[in-house]
């Protein structure tokens, strides 16, 4: 069995979903242990053990630092002889995976939507050209460093020993340091972790109508997204942009409201499991990828849709 190190994420003692995903994928591929670095990291150890982690490396640090995280993780991989490192393709995973690979003088492949073992190599498949093609890759050097697309891999229960080993994470020697941080997530579920995302496009006509998208999302406990056109027009915060120059999401259900489906937008939501499109233009490209399409004026559809959802969900 391959010796695998899953990298989790924790902040303020709250374990991120990504930690369960990387640990579950690691368990599927071999013998997995997990590293958790962040504030209140110890609180996550028992949680990742439920997904199969034999050892949980716990590093306490108040402030995120890419250089320090990467060095600490690369040291574990070297010291304990891990053959495969699996990270989430999240903000942190993207910032540290290439650093870890370089410190280990090895290759990295990013954003796997499919992952499997082929002999002693991990074979991944990932979208390229904004999802217009897929490519299959292996790292041929060792160890193998891989990031997996958030929300796109199943979480599985499997009891692991969860033996805690404390590690030191020291940002003292880092060239770049975080000096200020301002949380911006609000009360809603984060876009990349959300099971359901409701997203608005130009069809909503103006900023005064963006609350319609938010209300629909709140009934569903969903994340809120938008197209580039909506963000560029200033109708909502730019952090909500989904697409080629925004975030990539893979929810179970993506509800596209007043979105035509430009290729750049599809790049950010094309790997959603189910897609619902509401648009009055029957020729909108979004209908080509939709599981369900409603051809109608969104302003007529949203009010009854909200009522139906509230009734169905007992809200």
């Amino acid at each position, binding site marked *: 069995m391959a010796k695998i190190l899953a990298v989790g994420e924790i902040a303020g003692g709250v374990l991120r979903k990504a930690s369960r995903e990387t640990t579950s994928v690691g368990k599927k591929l071999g013998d997995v242990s997990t590293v958790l670095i962040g504030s209140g990291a110890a609180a996550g150890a028992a949680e990742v053990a439920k997904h199969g982690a034999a050892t949980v490396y716990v590093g306490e640090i108040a402030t995120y630092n890419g250089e320090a995280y990467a060095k600490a993780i690369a040291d574990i991989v070297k010291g304990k002889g891990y053959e495969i490192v699996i990270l989430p393709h999240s903000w942190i995973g993207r910032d540290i995976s290439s650093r870890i690979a370089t410190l280990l003088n090895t290759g990295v492949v990013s954003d796997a939507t499919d992952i499997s073992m082929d002999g002693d190599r991990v074979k991944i498949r990932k979208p390229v050209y904004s999802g217009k093609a*897929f490519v299959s890759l292996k790292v041929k*050097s060792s160890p193998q460093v891989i990031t997996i697309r958030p929300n796109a891999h199943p979480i599985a229960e499997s009891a692991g020993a969860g033996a805690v080993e404390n590690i030191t994470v020291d940002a003292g020697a880092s*060239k770049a340091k975080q000096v200020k941080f301002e949380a911006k997530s609000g009360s809603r579920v984060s876009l990349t972790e959300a099971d359901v995302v409701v997203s608005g496009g130009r069809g909503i006509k103006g900023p005064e109508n963006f609350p319609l998208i938010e209300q629909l999302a709140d009934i569903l406990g969903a994340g809120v997204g938008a197209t580039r056109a909506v963000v560029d027009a200033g109708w909502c915060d730019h952090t909500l942009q989904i697409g080629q120059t925004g975030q990539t999401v893979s929810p179970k259900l993506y509800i596209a409201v007043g979105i035509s489906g430009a290729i750049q937008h599809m790049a950010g939501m094309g790997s959603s499991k189910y897609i619902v499109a509401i648009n009055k233009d029957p020729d909108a490209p979004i209908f080509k990828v939709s*599981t*369900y399409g*409603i051809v109608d004026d969104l302003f007529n*559809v949203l009010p009854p*849709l909200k009522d139906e959802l509230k009734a169905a969900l007992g809200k």
Partner: protein
Amino acid sequence: MNTLVLIKQVPDTEAKINVAAGKISDAGIKWTISPYDEIALEEAIRMKEKSGGTVTALAVGDDSVQNALRSAFAMGADTAIHVKVDGYQMLDSFGIAKAIATAIEGADYKVILAGRQGSDSDNGQVPLILATLKGWGCVSFAKKVEVSGDKAVIECEADGGEAVYESSLPVVITANAGLNEPRYPSLKGIMASKKKPIESKPVNIGAETKIDVLGFEPPPARPAGRTIDGADAAAKAKELVKALREEIKAI
């Protein structure tokens, strides 16, 4: 202060990507500077306009990437380096970063700007590998950059919010959308771009490849969907909720 901008030449984001026999077909593709790299270049030019210094654009690949360097000249780059490699492979980030590191050996760049990811591979690996190889700081997803004295202050999109970083120089910074709005090249810039010399630096990276590319394929077809019919919008809404609950059990 001298700034280096890493430029990647990619298919235009509107381009249709054809896959044949496990490979991407180049036929009919219009090539352009990767959108995030354009933002990086714009930022370097603005820094020069504000504080002086030079902007050097660098691209890795075969002779065709000289077109991207000409476009960089047209926007306002002063000099250009073509890192010429045989058997360029767009997904071989380690090899590409190593080639860049070799090509800029001994040069005195204080800031290295690049897009947060190429719009072809969507990886975002090369700037981080380069910084780590060189032992430089690297700040990802910048939305504001200030360089003064011997340090850079970078505001960036971070995990769950916005962060401010301070880094010693040299520093590698990756550009996020929102950092700036890239300018269109002026006619004068386009005319001048044709005459400026591109420095060619051949680098052999064959031995450094760490990735096996097994093959490309078209995206998997999505299962056919259906249109929700109904007498009016309310009937359609009702039918949709029923389908979401009973057919796909998504809510």
